[in-house]
């Protein structure tokens, strides 16, 4: 399945886009998503394996399976307030 992953802040600047498509096997988890992005190389080669991922607007644990209709986003370190 192809998962459209939303990007913000420094990730958006790196990719020069507000989302990136990631090809994943059915049943893939959040950590598989980060691994697949890193495997794309280029600007993603150095993405930390611990990068936070949100699924349907909630911070997701590494072992959470991603569904085709889920809203997925990469969350760089936050700086609100």
């Amino acid at each position, binding site marked *: 399945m192809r998962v459209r992953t939303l990007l*913000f802040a420094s990730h958006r600047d790196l990719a020069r886009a507000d989302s990136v498509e990631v090809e994943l096997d059915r049943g893939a988890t959040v*950590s598989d998503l980060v*691994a697949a992005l890193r495997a794309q190389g280029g600007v993603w080669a150095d993405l930390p394996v611990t990068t936070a991922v949100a699924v349907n607007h909630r*911070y997701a644990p590494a072992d959470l399976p991603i569904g085709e209709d889920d809203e997925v986003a990469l*969350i760089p370190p936050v700086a*609100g307030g």
Partner: protein
Amino acid sequence: MAVSVWITAERIVPSRVLDMVGDEADGAVLLFLGTVRNRNDGRPVDGLTYQAYPEMAESVLEEIATEASTRFGTDRLAVVHRHGDLEIGDVSVAVAISTPHRAEAFEGARYVMEELKRRLPVWKHEHYTDGRSDWVAGTEPPGVPRGAAR
């Protein structure tokens, strides 16, 4: 009454946020404002841009406000965070809370601010007076399993 939270691209009017709390049973009403400073880490700043993931930010703010409401025993709580372009002195965040006694109001507002700094999906891009600009180094959100990724 229920907690009110929102993310906005419009200028925050503190008196409107304050008007959302207060009750005849409350003897303490507190308003906290976060404003844009003209320096950060010794560098002169002339403005900043907050980028937000608005849908998630509203749901995280709602979660934080609900936790504060339970912990400090009040549903008179309003929280708003800006996104978009801000100038020096503009309000970036406002927290209004009212409680029967002052301790819960101070602690409740503090809790909301500390938690939103830890987990609100908002990013700060600072514009320096020398024409440069950069993303402010942020905080790794909690619940990110360290070393769990394969």
